């Protein structure tokens, strides 16, 4: 039975998961925001939330808007999931145990220690790309750098790393409906899942990485072996695709904004702010679901218990009520702090500092070497149920003299 909406919400026929709306999401997101903070989407029978204030409210009210129903449109408690629920799909107190274990491993101190090993690969890549003059940001940089540094930090074997991107693709596409996009992502699902699960097993992790340190928590009695496997898996699935898209999207913004590049080139210390503003404007993680545990009101709309809520973080991050009239502009002078590209509240991305570090280092390496960067062709958006990114972003660079 398709659920029906409450009386006081406006319905729209828009489909956030159509190929047209995925490749150019912003006209639809503007339409939804202008319709009101909460809209009933007829096609899927879910409440879509597009206003910043309301998205923030849902993210921080982990009791009313639970995660254990899954981040996709189906309640994973009602049917057999394709995998055991992850930390993202859990609520307190289960979530608390896993979150504490993870923050014990990924924290400001351990991430600070990554700056040194993560820097030379960024500089080597930048050196090579500047010499080439023309390259594809996605294929030649964004997909290469995180895969070069991050799996080493987790400590997984070399063998099987080719499954990381396809596996991440499965995980994030599953936050959308069962459509052709999802079918394509799951084409070789069993093979990718098996390879990833094998990489998360204790005996296959090297002794120094984050993976081994998560397994140490089993020894301490803080985690069960199953939880440890799931947390290593969560790191691998959440930490690659999103960072790839974050790097790509940042460079797309900068290549289209010569003034911003000039500012950054003159002061490469601004790299982290340039990344943050790109995360706001072109958020890699655009949309996912929550499930209501009780009836309540959000943005003036009554929502019954057990409703699926589609959170449009990409819309919230461009809400003019929060980001002013120039919300659609890339402005590295803007105070982008508080955007919800990494989520907010209890489930805010644990790997955020690692992702920020990777993005900052890549950008800094380029900013110190590149005088000008400009498009060398149209970026090709990727068709993906929940992530915003590009298959290809061709650019030309002029080296600094």
């Amino acid at each position, binding site marked *: 039975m398709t659920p029906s909406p409450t009386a006081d919400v406006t319905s729209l026929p828009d489909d956030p998961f159509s190929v047209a709306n995925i490749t150019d999401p912003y006209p639809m997101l503007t339409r939804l925001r202008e319709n009101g903070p909460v809209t009933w989407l007829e096609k899927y029978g879910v409440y879509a939330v597009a206003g910043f204030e309301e998205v923030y409210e849902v993210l*921080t*009210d*982990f*009791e*009313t808007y639970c995660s254990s129903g899954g981040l996709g449109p189906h309640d994973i408690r009602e049917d057999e999931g394709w995998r055991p629920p992850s930390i993202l799909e859990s609520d*307190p*107190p289960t979530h*608390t*145990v896993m*979150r*504490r274990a993870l*923050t*014990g491993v990924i*924290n*400001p*101190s*351990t*991430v600070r220690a990554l700056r040194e090993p993560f820097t030379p690969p960024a500089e080597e890549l930048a050196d090579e790309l500047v010499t080439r003059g023309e390259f594809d940001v996605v294929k030649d940089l964004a997909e290469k750098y995180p895969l070069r540094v991050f799996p080493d930090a987790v400590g997984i074997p070399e063998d099987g790393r080719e499954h990381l991107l396809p596996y991440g693709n499965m995980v994030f596409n599953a936050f959308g409906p069962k459509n052709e996009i999802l079918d394509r992502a799951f084409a070789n699902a069993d093979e990718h899942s098996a390879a990833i699960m094998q990489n998360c097993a204790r005996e296959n992790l090297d002794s120094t990485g984050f993976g081994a340190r998560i397994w140490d928590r089993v020894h301490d009695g803080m985690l069960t072996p199953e939880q440890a496997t799931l947390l290593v898996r969560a790191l691998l699935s959440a930490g690659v695709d999103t960072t790839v898209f974050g790097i790509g999207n940042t460079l797309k913004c900068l290549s289209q904004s010569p003034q911003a590049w000039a500012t950054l080139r003159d002061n490469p210390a601004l790299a*982290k*702010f340039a990344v*943050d503003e790109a995360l706001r404007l072109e958020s890699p993680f655009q949309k996912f679901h929550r499930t209501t545990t009780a009836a309540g009101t959000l943005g003036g709309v009554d929502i019954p218990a057990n409703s699926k809520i589609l959170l449009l973080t990409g819309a919230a991050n461009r809400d003019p009520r929060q980001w002013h009239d120039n919300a659609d502009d890339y402005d590295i002078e803007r*105070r982008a*702090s*508080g*955007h919800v590209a*990494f989520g*907010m*509240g*209890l489930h*805010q*991305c644990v790997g*955020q*500092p690692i992702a*920020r570090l990777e993005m900052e280092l890549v950008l800094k390496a380029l900013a110190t070497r590149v005088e000008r960067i400009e498009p060398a062709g149209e970026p090709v958006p990727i068709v993906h149920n929940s992530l915003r990114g590009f298959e290809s972003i061709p650019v030309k660079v002029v080296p600094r003299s």
Partner: protein
Amino acid sequence: MSVLRARTREVVVDRVERVAEDVVSLVLVNPDGSPFPAWEPGSHVDLHLGEEHVRQYSLCSSPTDLSHLRIAVLNVPDSRGGSRWVHENIRPRDTVPISEPRNNFPIKDSRKYLFLAGGIGITPIIPMIEWAHAAGKEWQLVYGGRSRDSMAFGDRLRDEYGDRVRLVPEDESGRMDLQAILGLPRAHMLVYACGPTGMLRTVEDLCMGWPPGALHTEKFAATALGTASAAEPFDVDLVRSGKTVRVPTDRTILEAVEDVGVRVLSSCRHGLCGTCETTVVSGDPEHRDAVLPQQDRDSGDMMMICVSRAAAGCRRLALDL
């Protein structure tokens, strides 16, 4: 001492009442009957006892009635003598010097409140409850003590607020089951706890799984000096930009720094994500975040400026900004 003296006023003890076993309550009025200055729930006054002793006592009267102030004092046998002195020496119509009310334990606005009181720790909670109730907030109080007779104001609170107040006298129902009370974090709920050190340590442990910033405690027993940082503004030198900013009690370092146009990357602004980590050049931080590991806390080289502040006695921090 002259500084403290300058901020005191002489008040008259209007009434001395025994409000529980070993607890007396003092009602203080101005000699000329004039009202006291306004104060906020959570505030305390310093009581100057004889020449040597200065003790902090939370105000448990109503902030909406400034005609008098009320404090309650537990006679602690092995204390440093302040409470016994009050019990043995203070009589109606005595004059005592007190400080102006100060607040180390301010209540923040949210939707829901869980108040936890152990013994005499009930005192700062009483005005908080009154405020939360008047503001129409969702709240509950769990109040534990050795026995019903030892629990000051327990029956009165129960009569006034009904089921929202749960009294847990240890001799009837055992100790407060803090594990059950705090096991499940609640969204938008702030926890205000005051009581003996052992109880607060358990509360702190259990609140590790709550959102950062949810737990607020005042360590009541003779540690008011240790919480002075919340009550005092301090200065922050931004060594790279050459600016100095004052951080008032109601602003964070991050906000104060942003106000003078210095950019700091931040995200959650609640001490959870670690994005605003800042190098400390000099001074002692008091860490209030949920992410910095212990060895970094101990070294004091880094701090999360969205929630952390200057430590007690440190009036100046220098940051690498």
